[in-house]
């Protein structure tokens, strides 16, 4: 099957020399069918969660699934913010939930850690890109290697360190942690981008009397801004999705959304409508961001190893 794919377009052009027309048509139909199956497999779960988030309790928790035949409701999204509870006297009251707080923490920690990592990473990337640093390749490899470790391997000592330094469940502790985790990525991505900016730009600026530092922030920084935007999107997504450290190092004050949502499924009797709504809300920014950086995706997911 695989080799036909490569062969088919050229073979049709060649006409008489290729396989019979009927075989090509059958092959194409098979490929189209395979692709359709794959699209369904990869997109159905997303469709399912999003549609469940608009179903009421009866439709969401039904043994016969409602694919399209349900009346959409926004109740689940309302329940993310306020939930009604039975009071002792039999009436109902509105209680606010923890989800807004989780989302708020996620946003604060994510934005701060991303900006910090981006600034520090860009500075280091510029240093590596333009100056003869001693043992440059070793240093760069060292920076990369810290990201290859399984995160659980450093979780225990970081937990101990944070406990001793009273950094557990603090905003600055989490921001510092995520900044550090993101630095390798920021350095490697930004170095790749800055390498591509011709040195002549700064040289010209310095001939005109700029100091090296002025040349950096008046010439290189504006040039690197689109690249920095793409890089920051990957940093944002990484921190936004982080779960392992968040479960251990945040408690009530700074708990972020991923451990918050994961905990929701154990709160007795799973409300799938609510969980779907929270998940949809949580995933939405990631999907939008992914769409925005689709042209940088390859570079981003391979740490800048694969350009093009």
């Amino acid at each position: 099957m695989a080799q036909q794919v490569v062969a088919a377009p050229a073979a049709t052009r060649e006409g008489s020399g290729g396989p019979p027309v009927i075989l090509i048509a059958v092959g194409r139909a098979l490929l189209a069918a395979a692709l359709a199956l794959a699209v369904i497999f990869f997109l159905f779960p997303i469709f399912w969660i999003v549609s469940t988030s608009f179903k009421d309790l009866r439709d969401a928790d039904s043994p016969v699934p409602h694919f399209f035949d349900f009346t959409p409701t926004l109740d689940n999204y309302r329940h993310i913010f306020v939930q009604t509870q039975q009071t002792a006297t039999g009436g109902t009251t509105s209680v606010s939930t923890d989800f807004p707080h989780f989302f708020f923490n996620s946003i604060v920690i994510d934005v701060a850690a991303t900006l910090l990592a981006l600034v520090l990473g860009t500075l280091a990337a510029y240093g590596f890109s333009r100056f003869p640093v001693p043992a440059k390749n070793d240093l760069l490899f060292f920076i990369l290697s810290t990201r290859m470790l399984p995160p659980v391997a450093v979780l225990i000592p970081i937990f101990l360190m944070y406990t001793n330094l009273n950094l557990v469940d603090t905003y600055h502790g989490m921001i510092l942690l995520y900044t550090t985790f993101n630095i390798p990525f920021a350095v490697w991505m930004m170095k790749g981008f800055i390498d591509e900016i011709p040195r002549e730009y700064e040289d010209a600026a310095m001939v005109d009397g700029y100091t090296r530092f002025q040349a950096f922030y008046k010439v290189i920084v504006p040039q690197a801004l689109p690249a920095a935007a793409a890089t920051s999107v990957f940093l944002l997504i990484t921190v936004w999705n982080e779960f392992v450290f968040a479960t251990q190092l945040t408690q009530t004050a700074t708990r972020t959304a991923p451990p918050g949502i994961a905990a929701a499924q154990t709160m007795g009797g799973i409300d799938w409508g609510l969980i779907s709504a929270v998940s949809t809300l949580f995933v939405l920014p990631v999907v939008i961001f992914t769409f925005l950086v689709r042209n940088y995706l390859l570079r981003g997911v391979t740490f800048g190893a694969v350009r093009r």
Partner: protein
Amino acid sequence: MATATPSASVEGLRRQRRRPWLTDRRMAFLFIAPSVILLLAISIFPLIWSVYLSFTRYKVTGIEAPVWVGLSNYHTILTNNDLYDDWHIFQVTAVIVFCAVTLEFLLGFGLALILVRKFPGRGLILTLMLTPMMLAPVIVGLFWRFMLDATFGVVNYMQSAWLHLPRVDYLDQPNTAIGSLIVADVWMWTPFMLLISVAGLSAIPRYLTEAALVDRASAWFRFRQITLPLVWPLLLIALIFRTIDAIKLFDLAFTLTGGGPGQSTLTVSYLLFTKAFNDYDTGSSSALAYIILIMVIALANIYIRNLNKVASA
């Protein structure tokens, strides 16, 4: 460009008379040092500390200071004398990593061979299919747990109502639970292989395949002799990333199976987490962390050696 304006150069000349305090060497140091210091403090220092902890008997929650026990923690895990069935857990992890990465590779590369052709809607399909890998693993775990549910799950409905197969409680039996974990991982990470394969395939120069066609080379020959050798280095990079990441698998299992039923879907990373934060067995979990680390480094080295061989050939 601002640099070309005359005012800038006049101002610049005035500046040049003063000897700059910020020499290139100082600037390089000041630019690079913060990142390196942060990494040393928050990644490397803890890592070294945990080497020491792995040679001790210690509980974070206890009041006792760490007691030096030499290689005993490593010995207990490697001879399978632990509270957990470590050997079995290593095997399960190997099965999950092998099956998931192989399936992701085959599916991703296969789909890439289709999607590398130009047809209407290709860009949209490709972009949509790449979303799963950007989602949080905890959320993906929840998605699949919901869909695989025995009574309310849509998967069970489809197989019983449409295909007339018996209902299966996927997450309640060891083998199907492991299978579910693999399926969820494949769903999430095939897009990664797809992305890299499409990039590799579309970079193959057209004149090469066309030259082979002129020579009437068979389709298989073209695939084997032109396509594969050219994309193989890129695919190896993708395999390195995926294998290392698959060994780290934890978040997904946490929400999908919770390591169960029993301990059947405990992977090494999950075991590490359990030892460290349920049992608070700090010494033993540090030792396990190092065993995993050495395995990861060894695997990465095998791949990289293969990559160098391919690159030099």
